[in-house]
């Protein structure tokens, strides 16, 4: 049997999950990965599944900030993502990372909004190096 691409696997799993058959598909995927010795690719496949689920309207993502977000801000971010992606549901995890210094970084499958101070500094650093 030809090796299935991660894209093909992820599309199938995402379709099954959207159809509501999660238990069966999890078992199927686990069995397939063990059988084909591709368990190392699990994290990549999960990312791909997230991507196809987000295309189907169920977006899950991470909001990274330097300090705790208020519930209000979190709601505003959720609303923004809904507007931008046309998603039906948005599930956001919060991550506190002081290295971003300030601002916010919203990561959803395949896309990112990086309005952090650390990124601005990186861009600035590159620009000065080039000149």
């Amino acid at each position, binding site marked *: 049997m030809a090796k299935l691409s991660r894209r093909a696997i992820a599309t199938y799993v995402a379709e099954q999950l959207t159809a509501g058959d999660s238990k069966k598909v999890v078992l199927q995927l686990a069995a397939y990965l063990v059988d084909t010795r591709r368990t190392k690719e699990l994290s990549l496949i999960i990312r791909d599944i997230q991507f196809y689920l987000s295309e189907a309207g169920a977006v899950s993502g991470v909001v990274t900030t330097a300090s705790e977000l208020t519930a209000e801000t979190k709601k505003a971010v959720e609303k923004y993502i809904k507007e931008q992606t046309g998603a039906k549901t948005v599930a956001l995890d919060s991550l506190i990372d002081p290295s971003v210094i300030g601002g916010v970084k919203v990561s959803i499958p395949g*896309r*990112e909004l*990086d309005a952090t101070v650390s990124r601005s500094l990186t861009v600035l650093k590159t620009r000065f190096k080039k000149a």
Partner: protein
Amino acid sequence: MSELSITELSNDLRNAIAKLETTGNLDEVGVVLRVGDGVAWVRGLRNAGYNEVLQIETEEGIVEAFALNLMEDEIGAVLLGEDSKVKAGQTVRLKGTVLSVPVGPELLGRVVDPLGRAIDGGPAIKTKQQGLVEREAIGVMGRKSVHEPLMTGISAIDVMFPIGRGQRELIIGDRQTGKTALAIDTMINQGKQNTGVVNVYVAIGQKRSKIARLVERLKQEGVMDQTIIVATSPADPASLLYLAPYAATAMGEYFRDNSQHALMIYDDLTKHAVAYRQMSLLLRRPPGREAYPGDVFYLHSRLLERSAKLSDDLGAGSLTALPIIETQAGDISAYIPTNVISITDGQIFLETDLFYQGIRPAISAGLSVSRVGGAAQSGAIKSVSGGLKLGLSQFRELASFAQFGSDLDEATKSQIERGQRLTELLKQHQYNPMSVWQQTASILSVTKGYFDKVAPAKIKAAQAAMLTRLWADHKKDMTELDKGGKPTEEILKSIEVTATATAKGFEG
């Protein structure tokens, strides 16, 4: 449809597209999966296009790469900077452009890298325009036949293998046979003869010291002002070596497309093919003959096809190419040499044996050819070049027989003697290009037999003396001859008189 309604339609469409754009500030991102040997493998970025620039965010700033392998699950991208800064897990963004370099007259006199950044210690280069590194060659209807000469100043080439503006003429030979010297002389000649042709010299994987020496020489000769040098050293990543000729061609195309003339020198395409082989193997593309990838022909054909003579409608500019190929032990039937020979409009083959015999430039009369240059040869040179190539190749053949010392008939003897004189005459020192009148008068003096009594060893001295006398006595005629027209009876007579008179002082 009136102009107004088209503008309205265009605005309506733009507005409609803007409303449909849902991405907002959400950039498409990917992740570096693994990196090594100058190649990064990236997942995500489903909308990446071939040759599109990717930006990898490292701790020390953004490193750029360009996508070459677009596969179902990942992208193979070649880094344009050091791979030591790039690590797995770093974020990758699309820059939204394919590779482009600054182009324009601001680059003249500068030494730049393949990304258009100054490496000559001068100020940063700011141009009004950018040119695409990869660009489709002009079509048939946009072209015109090659018809104007591009004088190299090397009489052996201008007389026997003339090059026209828009032609691609390969310079091929073993190492240390004077390939680069020919190209440099051609660049110098553009300055000396005030042809207005812009030189673009591409150094692919050459030592920085060699480039520095070249720049110094071009400055001494006063040609640097009309020259752009795109330099890469062996220490640069293979990606930069691969990009160098394409980026330089983009810089040359600016002049071609603005009704000017430019000369590209690719030094050399063997190293370019090797850099591409390295990249292809690291991208895990299947190896073919001599481990080169299957598209190595396309690598050079798409590059050299961009050199062209444009039609009058497009401004009649031109881009001439002198690619250089290094052979191993004179083997021109190896993979890359045969490819480039078949792409170009002729080749100048330099032989090691001739070089060590002191015949420099060591041009092989038998193996060299110019397929389209004949139509571009100036009238003056054409009038003296008939049968020269054939005569010289016959002489070299006969000369090898004559070594056996057998008795030779008079006809053969005279052919050999004429050949010896011609060979001596075509020897030329480096950095010493000759103008049209000098070449015409020199060739005439041997082919018409004015120098028949001059000993071959004294030919160069006789030639110099004759040219000095001609310039002193017939300056007006020679200036007229230099314009390239067919020499008049009067001019021919003055050459005959001067050559015969000069020859008397060099008999022996």
